[in-house]
């Protein structure tokens, strides 16, 4: 019962937090760059406005354009409901596995790629081709990061990893640091952030994510934006859960522990949002064909993390 309650609270939190987090990162970025910036609640207001607007569907669009936003959002929400935020022991914890998470993210990617192709415009196809080629580098990097956990904690289930961490079996390891770097690079690529893609631009030649949803409008656009916001939130929550694993409420009914966990989770997300805003302000967007180097470095870091583990278990 308490597991279901935690799960419901978690999903509500993710849904409420996602647009806010996007707004917060934009706000922080604007302030760091010396601009006034929109209010952090602006993404929420945008969503509310878009849902009420009449969607215009392109003449050549098929049912894919109408179904894909729902599929993309459902995949993002399903993935977000698997990543723990303020408490452990949620109802879906048994199925929360890093590989399933990767699969759900891939499903969302497939939805947006198909939608990008559906109308037959130049930019949609361009963005889709780039998105899929980035994913070919991001996915092995994510798997290698998962391998570090599979070796250290003996499992790829998020709950199992957290349990192993709380038992103190993992300790502070260089491998975890390398895996964290690899996962951050994947997170940046998956969320179309600088330096891989620029979330604020509509300059045709640099965009990947935006190019695929150029034809979407009204509630479809709202769903795509909400899905993107959920993805950013779930990645930050995943990084927080795996690499800043403290302050989470234990499984079971613990309202006070939940409140404390909520506060600590909010602090972690704020810190990650600050870090993301600072990183994005400090770095320039890279050429599309340098992205493989960026993600290739992530892959190498993941590989190195596993290698160090193999060697260290031999020395110990």
């Amino acid at each position, binding site marked *: 019962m308490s597991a279901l309650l935690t799960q419901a609270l978690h999903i509500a939190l993710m849904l409420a937090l996602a647009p806010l987090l996007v707004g917060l990162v934009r706000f922080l970025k604007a302030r760091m760059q010396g601009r006034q910036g929109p209010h952090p609640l602006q993404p929420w207001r945008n969503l509310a406005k878009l*849902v*009420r607007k*009449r969607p*215009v*569907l392109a*003449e*050549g669009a*098929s049912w894919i354009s*109408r179904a894909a936003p*729902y*599929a993309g*959002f*459902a995949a993002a929400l399903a993935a977000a*409901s698997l990543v723990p935020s303020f408490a452990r022991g949620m109802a*879906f914890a*048994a*199925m929360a*596995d890093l*590989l*399933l998470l990767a*699969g759900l993210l*891939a*499903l969302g990617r*497939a939805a947006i790629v*198909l939608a990008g*192709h559906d*109308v*037959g*415009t*130049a*930019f949609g*196809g*361009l963005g*889709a*081709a780039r998105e*899929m080629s980035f*994913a*070919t*580098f991001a*996915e*092995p990097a994510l*798997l290698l990061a*998962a*391998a570090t956990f599979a*070796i250290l904690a*003996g*499992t*790829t289930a998020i709950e199992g990893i957290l349990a192993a961490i709380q038992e103190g079996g993992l300790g502070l390891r260089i491998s975890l640091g390398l895996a964290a770097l690899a996962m951050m690079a994947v997170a940046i690529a998956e969320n179309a952030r600088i330096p891989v893609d620029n979330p604020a631009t509509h300059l045709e030649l640099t965009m990947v994510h935006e190019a695929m949803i*150029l*034809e979407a409008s*009204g*509630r479809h656009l709202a*769903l795509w934006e909400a899905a993107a916001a959920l993805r950013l939130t779930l990645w930050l929550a995943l990084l927080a859960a795996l690499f800043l694993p403290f302050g989470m409420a234990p499984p079971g009914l613990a309202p006070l522990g939940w409140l404390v966990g909520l506060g600590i989770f909010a602090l972690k997300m704020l810190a990650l949002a600050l870090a993301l805003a600072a990183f994005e302000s400090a770095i320039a967007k890279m050429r*599309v*064909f340098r992205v493989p180097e960026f993600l290739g470095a992530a*892959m190498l870091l993941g*590989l190195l993390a*596993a290698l160090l583990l*193999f*060697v260290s278990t031999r020395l110990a």
Partner: protein
Amino acid sequence: MLTAPLLLLIALCLLSGLSLVSPAVARHVPLGVAVAGAGFALLGIVALVAPDPVVWTLPFGPPGLPVRLALDGLSAWFLMLVGLVALAAGLGAPAAAPRRMQAALPLFLAGMVMTLLAADAATLLAGFEAMSLASFILVVGGQDSTDLRLAARRYLMFAALSVACLVPALGLMAAGAGDLGFAALRRAPPEGLVAACVMALVLVGAGSKAGLWPLHVWLPPAHAAAPAHVSALMSAAMTKVAAYVLARLLLDLAGPAQPLWFGVPLLVLGIVSAVAGALRANLEEDAKRLLACSTIENLGLILAAFGLALCFRAADLSAFAAMAAGAGLLLALAHAMFKTALFLAAGAVLQAAGSRRLDALGGLIHRMPWTAALALVGVLAAAGLPPLSGFAAEWLLLQGLLGAWRVGDLAFQLLGIAALAGAGLAVALGAAAMLRLFAMVFLGRPRTPRAAGALEAPAPLRAALLLTGFVTLLVGLFPGGFLALGAPALALLVRREADAGALALAAPEQAAHYAPLLAVGLLLAAGLLVRALIRRAGAPALVRGPAWDCGFAAPPPDLPFGDPATQPSAAGLAQPLRRMLGQPLLVVTEVVTMAPPGSPAPARLEAGFADPLESLALPALATARDRLAAGLDRLRDLTLRQALMLPFGALVALLALVAWLEAR
């Protein structure tokens, strides 16, 4: 138990013979193949549920080599798979075809089934050869062209290579056992150097049939040349029969006492094939060649799973070995179903829109809604997306690779991590290739008038697609149930059952689970929830308008489907991956030709790729063959004395070899 498949085999041979005599029978050959396929599938399922390990010795065959048949767990699993593919392909096949093709179709199926049912080495080889020759006729059988002849000749050469390797492999195994029966072979597993030779020969022999890199060069042209239902049978069923031979010889007959290195070549070549095939699938511009390259990828993953199972078994990690072997079996079933669907859909598109070239298709989702929707199921399964069959199978394989570190050897741990990265790369590349295929064929605007006027596929073909889609969904939702069904096969492969409930997959000792039904429930709940919320917000109905396309002007009236140049082309979609990953495994070219200053001629960009094995290795092999032939030609001009000395010398050398072997 064996009476029914034997009767079906005889009926198929009769059907083949009669179709040569009577045109009326020839018209009904596809139907007969479908019925036989359904029968084989049912028999396979029955044999999996109630295994019956009896071996039949038939009273004919060469002297001393009676034909022995058996239907054990491993045979039954692949019999079910081949039967399902034959059912779908028979439904989707056109009734009218050249008569030699109609005659070869039942023989092809009979050859595959005979390979699966064989319980001795000679019958296995006979079935394998019947399968190769019948499929050669089917590849040649279409219309005559130089491409086709090249494809058929290459196919025949590789078929000859595979039998030239399988015969000595089986000979080496039988030499130790003293009999050709599988039971005797199992009692005397090869050891040491002999085991290495057997491994290498089987890898080349069965691997070339399965399209293992670097022996895959025959596969794309042959699959592209054959008619769609034949491609489906070859790609989905025949390559699986090759995988079966490999699993039978290396996992079952070679015994569980093999060392760790025994599985490594299989694992390495499997991963390399998967990456190379998936990469090439992203660059191909012909729908059926693309699908053939994706077959190379999937067979690579299947063989890698079997190789991993061998390694785990050698390290006494039997739970992991069962998981890896189960991944191989599930991948085989999943691939058989979605690849049949995709080849049949490609055939329907060729029929309706007149082309296999991606650059001549597009927008068919409007004209062929059923085909498009059912092909989408296959595409999503092939892309390894939850909750379909591809994801469940790949989940098991990746969990197996994630557990590879449990084998204590440091070198193997490194190999396991590299294989994990390679498998991830292959899976992601495969997804990109499949989405590109669907987008080019079914989405966007029509690229030719013919594609704009396409008609929906006929009803039997849609029924076949419905069947494959249904099984794909079923395997995706109940992978644990199918693994439990395959338990007799796993018992032969790794002498143990996989850990799986009926509703979920589990990775042993890793405490990771995959429950597809829950994942589907979660996805549906999320989708319906947001739909209901949007409904409640009172969202207005849609309107249609011209595409925004960043403000591009509407095309002139003489271009009813818009300017074709503003839609991505097959080469254009391939460009990022061609530049990022193309170079080490393939030879890619991008040539920009600028018009001289002042000239109004357009600048041209020409992009392409070549498989180095095709463009470099094959010509080199052909030169070597010519040189060898020229050298052997000189034997004709020997004097009488030399001509007598040659066989005498060979005889003495052979006798010396025998004496040396005896003395050891």
